[in-house]
């Protein structure tokens, strides 16, 4: 695995150039550039705030809107990594057919692109939270850094998995859409986590790794604390598991994948 990572690092000029190219295309095409892609979570937040803040008693908009916005931003990254990840080998098909280089490079390209966008959105979220309720403990924001690193590795691993499965089975992306849709409701994105806990449905959240991962973002951002040791350890375990899954999948069929493209 070290040799594999070294190979990837040696080719950094290649994939970093492609990522830059992707980002340039993404942001150059639209008149407002970045604006459009940020508009979606902002609009969603606004609408959902209107609707749900009336449904959920005992929670003010000032508190609810940051929960929503941070959740939707987190979710947009996960979805982008996995959905676009699906296509990453097909996108790199012509390179794959000519050169023997580590296949993990292609999902990496996708996730770096999505990750960049995630970081930009996160800056907007931070500004938003600051306006809505301010930060009691600014240094806690640095607690985002380990979480972001873990999230990035997790997303890369998952993108490798979806990309591989999508080459082997053409309905992977459809299936993934459904799975993500379901997960969206099983993850405390649109609602405060304590809502389910009060209704004795806490176990749903407990067994959902995304609940843990979302804590990496929300604890520093909304609760003014560093991520708790619990959250960090659990996230680390989840990330390691995802890396193992990706590594096993690649070891099993990386070399043969070219026949299925």
């Amino acid at each position, binding site marked *: 695995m070290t040799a594999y990572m070294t190979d990837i690092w*040696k*080719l950094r*000029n*290649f994939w970093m*150039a*492609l990522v830059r*190219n992707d980002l340039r*295309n993404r942001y150059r095409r639209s008149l407002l550039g970045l604006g459009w892609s940020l508009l979606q979570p902002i609009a969603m937040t606004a609408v959902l705030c209107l609707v749900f803040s009336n449904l959920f008693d005992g929670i003010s908009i000032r508190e609810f809107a940051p929960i929503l916005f941070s959740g939707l931003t987190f979710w947009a990254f996960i979805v982008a990594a996995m959905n676009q990840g699906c296509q990453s080998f097909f996108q790199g098909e*012509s*390179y*794959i*057919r*000519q*050169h*023997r*280089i580590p296949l993990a490079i292609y999902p990496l390209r996708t996730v770096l692109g999505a990750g960049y966008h995630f970081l930009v959105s996160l800056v907007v979220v931070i500004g938003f939270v600051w306006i809505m309720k301010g930060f009691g403990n600014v240094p806690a924001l640095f607690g985002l850094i380990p979480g972001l690193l873990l999230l990035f590795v997790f997303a890369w691993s998952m993108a490798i998995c979806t990309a591989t*499965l999508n080459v*082997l*089975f*053409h*309905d*992977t992306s459809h*299936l993934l859409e459904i799975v993500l849709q379901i997960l969206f409701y099983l993850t405390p994105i649109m609602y405060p986590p304590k809502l389910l806990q009060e209704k004795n449905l806490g176990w749903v959240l407990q067994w959902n790794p995304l609940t843990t991962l979302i804590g990496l973002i929300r604890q520093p951002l909304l609760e003014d604390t560093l991520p708790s040791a619990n959250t960090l350890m659990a996230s680390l375990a989840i990330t390691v598991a995802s890396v193992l899954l990706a590594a096993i999948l690649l070891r099993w069929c990386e*070399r*043969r994948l*070219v*026949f*299925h493209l």
Partner: protein
Amino acid sequence: MNAIELNDVSLHFRVRRHGRTSLKDYLLHGLLRRGESNIIEVKALQQIDLKVAQGERLGILGHNGAGKSTLLKLLAGVYPPTSGTRRVTGRVSSLFDISLGFEHEASGWDNIRYRSYLQGETPRSVDARLNAIAEFSELGEHLDMPVRYYSSGMLVRLAFSVATAIEPEILIIDEVLSAGDHSFQAKARVRMRSLISSAQAVVVVSHDMDSLRQICNRLVWLDHGHLRMIGEPNEVIAAYLRSMQGDAQPMAA
């Protein structure tokens, strides 16, 4: 030392009769334990033993579908052998499918960079070569345009210019390239010659007997995935042509 060694290499792959498998079908078949009728196994290469020494120029000939391109891709490392071992000592540069693999929204300049990086170069080493590559391609100010607007001839020029800009150790070529218009072809041929003479080992597939005779010191004749003959170019070509006539006569009769 041998630059390339293949020991008892076979390559089989599975092709689907129609479309790609869906997870749904896969699970259904798995549950019902029905045979996978959708899959055909292609034996593209069978028990190939091949050694290419340093300094050798090996040519491959054979009918369409004999496995020539598959063998090249296996040598380049794109295809893994199903069984047997492949050992290649040295950096491989491959010239096949070169007109594929462009970032269509990016300019010609950017694409030169991407491809060079893919071949393991650094920004600094590309900078040093950039102008020479551009000049050789003769694309001039078209290089500022997104590659999307290029004609296929222009794409080949660009690809060829980049791919041949670095001196390869082991060179793998599919068909002696017919790149671009007449004047460019002449230029490309000259460059190809110089690459071939500077590379430590060359493997080339071609249907052009004359160029095979000129370039190669040894020829391999592939027939339905089998290595049918290997030896001195004139002998192999003669045997190959004889068999072609032998095949043709009964049909004419």
